[in-house]
């Protein structure tokens, strides 16, 4: 099973953001772990995802505030990716919730890609510029 590990280069130096990143990774790992447990119920997974959705919504909101305050130059595209991510996780949640054609492996891949993609690109740049 793949886990997302916290890496020092994830650190932005902004305490609030780093704190939430760590928390989010923990919640994601919880969801990933749950998804491959034998006899996993899609309802339980959906609940975990709902939690992640709430937390990540708040996290993005905070990040966006910090970007606005610091006048981050790529705010618009970063914000757009946030909205795409929120849209995506909600679609993932709907798929899981519907229970049909739920394939744990696919789910893990989709969720990992969902999180890491944004992290590798948009967040990495934000961290570079802010850090």
């Amino acid at each position, binding site marked *: 099973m793949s886990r997302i590990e916290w890496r020092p280069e994830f650190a932005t130096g902004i*305490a*609030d953001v780093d704190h939430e990143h760590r928390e989010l990774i923990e919640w994601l790992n919880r969801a990933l772990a749950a998804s491959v447990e034998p006899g996993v119920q899609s309802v339980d997974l959906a609940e975990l995802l709902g939690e992640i959705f*709430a937390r990540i919504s*708040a*996290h993005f909101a905070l990040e966006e*505030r910090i970007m606005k305050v610091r006048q981050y130059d790529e705010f618009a595209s970063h914000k757009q990716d946030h909205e795409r991510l929120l849209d995506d996780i909600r679609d993932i949640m709907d798929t899981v919730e519907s229970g049909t054609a739920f394939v744990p492996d696919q789910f893990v891949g989709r969720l990992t890609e969902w999180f890491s993609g944004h992290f590798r690109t948009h967040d990495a740049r934000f961290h570079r510029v802010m850090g």
Partner: protein
Amino acid sequence: MNGLKRGVRAVFARLENLLDRLCTPAFNPLGQLGALGWFLFWLIAISGIYLYIFFDTGVTQAYTSIESITQDQWWAGGIMRSFHRYASDGLVVVAFLHMLREFGLDRLRGRRWFAWITGLLLIGFIYVCGITGYWMVWDQLAQYVALTTSAWLDALPIFAEPISRNFLNNASLSGRFFTLMVYVHIAAPLLMLLFMWIHIQRYNYARVNPPRRMMVVAVAAFVALSLLDPALSQAPANLDALAVSVRLDWFYVALYPLTETVGAPALWWGVILAFVVLAALPWLPPQRESPPAEVHLDNCNGCGRCFADCPFGAITMQPRSDGAAFSEEAVVEADLCVRCGICVGACPTATPFRRATALIPGIEMPAFNLASLRNQIETLGRDLTGDARVLMFRCPNGAAVATSPGVAIVEVPCVGMVPPPFLDLIVRRRLADGVLLAGCGESECYERLGIDWTEQRIAARRDPYLRDNVPRERVAVSWAGSGQVAMRANTLAQFSAALIAGAAKSGPSASSAAWRDTASRLPRPVRYAGLGVIVAASGLLLGFLSDTPAVQLRGADEAVVTLSFSHAGELKEKCRVLTPEEMARLEPNMRRPSDCTRARWPVYVELELDGHTVYAARHAPAGLWDDGPSSLFARFRVPAGAQRAEVRLRDTGRESGFDASSTAELDLQPGQNLVIEFRQPGGFSFR
């Protein structure tokens, strides 16, 4: 009180419904009254500065300088003068409508008393500005304003000498008075601007500019009015020969004729009583309130969205107090919170998809929590039947609507309280086929920004966005005030029909904005014609009432006798010269040659015309120690023609008899102002 409020609200609801249809809600002037007030203020300020450049202070220069700019440069100064007058008249209309409407909508109780009280003060300022403005022209209206205002102010027991004595006759008039007027006429608007700023202090994103198109229409209408019915001076003021009648600007001096009929003191009591009652309205009765918004720090990371969206500035961001890793937290100022819940709609943690932990957002209304809101919509959704199941969020201030098996209503304090993820839940999980956000009339949200924020969140232009994959055909808005019940029912019917028709087709939304009923709009020519009628009617009203009808001041064959003095009666006790021994007993710095009591005798005066006593009264000395002059300014309307006047005065402690008296044979011309004045030395004079 409630009945009156409902009545006012019903009248405004009808008017607003009409104007919504003619002007479209965005350009409904009744939704822009406050902003129009600001706009008119700037128009008045700009035209006033222009007029000030050419204005001369002086008894005759005041009138001639204004005549000169009105006539010689009618194309600039004349238009500016008309602008100045008509915009000022418009300001009175706008201010009173604004006040009446806020009263009708009950937007003055509870936390909103602040704007109401400061608004009342602003109305006072408007009158001070307007009255001093008319005074400066020094035409017949100015003379009427000067005499009546002076008489009104003289009824207050605070002036040692009546202000009216400045306006005895032409000879006594001083140019300095116009300098004073200019000073007041500049100082009052500046102070007023300060109060206008204070007036909107408790509002975030206060609207101080009407839409640009409305400003253009207003300026064009004022220019047209200025050309068609320019503001002109009446005949020059003349304190020696009084006019029979004067044309009034009824927006400013409508109450002035009352000083003549009910008397100045009664008018004072009336105004004071009106002010006290109006000022008490926010607490008649006090508003019952649920608890204010509450921040749950466990769920607040200090993102600031509630802070950005609160319409009443009740939320501030402050340093973190709970030791969490975040730098800020939201703090609610309970005294400013109106309990609209718009902050809840802005909170990113307010999502109904949270089930592993309790659904507690970062900020919440304790009396209206989100967990029960989620329960409610899930229960209601289950019971809905039919092909077009609609869940409706309705605020208490908008149009009422009937329920049906296909429609369930969720009452919320304001539609702006509904977080977008709730719409997502309803639509994507098919709790209903569509969701309808039913708020106040579009031209005015009771909680100010609920409509704007809801529209922008759905259109993904303001945080939190309603996510892309929620089809907007299933998310509808209905903005209908209490007078637009039919419109709301119609919108609901249209939306249900659209849901059934659109059920077959699926795919990406055509629009990013919410679904709205556009079918019932009036055709453009009808709207423009209606708008033209409204603008023309407003212009006619301003043009007419600004100088018509005239009031009759006295009969054509009447003259006026003015009796006036400012004269100190004799000291009640003679000064006593201190003996050297008495002086020696006093402290060196207290030594004085004589000891005087300060009190004076009152001055008694009588006036007889042709043997009839028209006036007889004692006038007490002014001053806290009764040591000032006694004074009098009184006018009598008398028939023109020959009269024998006898006037007598007593200013000592004698029981009977008089200290001064005089007799004159008068031949009064119609309109003549004969002044009988007593001065020492010199005695009585008849001029």
